[in-house]
C-alpha cells in the first residue's frame, strides 16, 4: 500500500467504514509503521478539535416559526380540493384532476412531519439514555477486544451450560440465562465475570467458526427495548432489554449473522422466562 492510499484507508478505518478484513489489514499496518501511527494520532486530535468547532446548535425558535409560516402560506397554493380547504375558501375553485397529486403530496408530507414529530419527542426523552447507551456500546466492544487477548477469554471454560450457569452462583446477585447453540453453529465456549454500567455482569462467550461472540447480561434497569445496531471499529453491537435482562452482544462476524444469533438468544430467553413465570 502506498502511503496516501494507506492514509485514506486509516480515515475510513477511524470512521468505522472498513469491512473487518480491511480493518485488520490497516491495524496490522499501523502496528508496524510508526509514521502511520503518528498520522492516526494526528487524525484523532483533529476529530476532537472539530467537535469543538462544530457544536450541535439547536435552530432558533424564530426559524421554526418562520419556516412553519412559509409552509402555511404555501399550502393554499397547492390547490387543495374543495372539501379540504378552509370553509371560507370552499367553492372558490372546483377541484381539478391536477389537484390530486398535490393533495397526496401534502398528506404524505404532513404524515411524515407528524411521524417525525413523534420521533423527536421520543428522542428528546431518550436523549440522555441514548448517550449513555453509546458509552456502554464502547465499553462492550472494549471488553470484548480485551477478552480476545491471550488468556483473557473465559474464567470458566466449558461447553456445558450446566457447568457455566452454576459457576456464576455466589459471584453475581442474579442467575444469568445460559444456553448452548452448538447445534446451530454457535457453541458455548465459556463465561467470565465482567464489570459494566457500574455493576458486575455475566459475560458469556460463544464461538462462530473462528470468531468469538461475547454476550453481556445483567438485570434490566431500563424499559423493554430493542436498540438499533451500532458498529465500532469493525465490531457490531446489538442491544436489547427484556423485562428481566439487558443484553449486549458483540462480535466481528457479519451483522446479518449476528442478528440471527441475537434472534436465537431472544427466543431461548423468552422460552425460559415463560417457564419461570409459570412456576
Amino acid at each position, binding site marked *: 500500500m502506498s502511503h496516501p492510499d494507506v492514509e485514506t484507508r486509516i480515515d475510513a478505518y477511524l470512521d468505522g467504514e472498513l469491512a473487518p478484513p480491511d480493518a485488520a489489514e490497516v491495524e496490522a499496518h499501523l502496528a508496524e509503521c510508526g509514521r502511520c501511527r503518528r498520522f492516526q494520532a494526528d487524525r484523532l486530535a*483533529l476529530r476532537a478539535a*472539530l467537535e469543538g468547532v462544530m457544536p450541535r446548535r439547536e435552530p432558533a425558535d424564530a426559524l421554526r416559526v418562520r*419556516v*412553519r409560516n412559509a409552509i402555511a402560506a*404555501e399550502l393554499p397554493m397547492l390547490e387543495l380540493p374543495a372539501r379540504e380547504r378552509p370553509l371560507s375558501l370552499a367553492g372558490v375553485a372546483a377541484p381539478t384532476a391536477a389537484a390530486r397529486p398535490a393533495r397526496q403530496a401534502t398528506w*404524505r408530507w404532513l404524515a411524515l*412531519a407528524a411521524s417525525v*414529530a413523534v420521533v423527536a419527542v421520543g428522542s428528546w426523552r431518550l436523549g440522555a439514555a441514548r448517550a449513555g447507551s453509546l458509552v456502554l456500546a464502547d465499553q462492550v466492544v472494549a471488553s470484548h477486544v480485551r477478552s480476545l487477548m491471550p488468556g483473557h477469554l473465559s474464567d470458566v471454560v466449558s461447553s456445558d451450560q450446566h457447568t457455566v450457569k452454576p459457576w456464576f452462583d455466589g459471584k453475581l446477585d442474579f442467575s444469568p440465562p445460559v444456553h448452548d447453540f452448538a447445534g446451530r453453529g454457535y457453541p458455548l465456549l465459556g463465561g467470565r465475570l465482567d464489570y459494566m454500567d457500574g455493576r458486575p455482569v455475566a459475560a458469556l462467550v460463544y464461538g462462530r467458526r473462528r470468531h468469538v461472540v461475547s454476550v453481556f447480561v445483567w438485570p434490566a434497569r431500563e424499559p423493554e427495548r430493542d436498540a438499533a445496531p451500532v458498529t465500532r471499529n469493525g465490531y457490531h453491537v446489538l442491544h436489547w432489554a427484556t423485562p428481566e435482562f439487558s443484553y449486549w452482544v458483540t462480535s466481528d462476524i457479519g451483522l446479518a449473522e449476528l442478528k440471527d444469533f441475537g434472534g436465537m438468544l431472544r427466543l431461548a430467553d423468552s422460552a425460559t422466562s415463560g417457564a419461570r413465570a409459570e412456576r
Partner: protein
Amino acid sequence: MLPHLGAAHGLARHLTGNDADADDVVQEAYLRALRHFGGFRGNGAAQSRGWMLTIVRNTAFTWRRRRRPEAEAAEFDETLHSETAGEDFGEELARRDSRETLAHALGRLPPDLREVIVLRELEGLSYKEIGDVVDVPIGTVMSRLSRARQRLQAALLAGKEG
C-alpha cells in the same frame, strides 16, 4: 412538527457561512421539499433526513450561484495562520486559538470538501448516505474526506507554528 430542522440548519449554516443566509436557505429548502414530496422514495427517519439534507445542499448551491459568485473563487490558503501566537498566553488561549484557526480553515474549504466533512462530523452520516446526498460514489466521498482533513490538519499545524 418540522422534521430534521436541526440537521438542515446545521448543514445550511456551514454551507452558507452565516446564520441569516442559512435561515433563507432552510426556508427555501422546506418549501421545495413540500412541493416535491412526491419525489421522496422510502420511509424512516434516516432516509427522510438524507432526502431533506440533499434538498438543503442543492438549495445552498443555487443560493451561492445566485448571490455570491465570488465565493466560489475563494481558495484555501495553506499558509493560513492565526493572528496571535499562543506561546505567551497559556494553554487555554492556545486552544481557543487553534479552534478559531480550525473554524476559519473549515469556512475556507472548497464547497465540495466542506460539505462532506460537515455531513460526516456534524451529522454523522455514513459514507453511503453522504454519497447519496452529494450524488457521488463512495470512493469519491472517501477521498474528499481525506483531502478535507488533510487541509484542516495543515491549517491547524500552520496555526500552531504561526
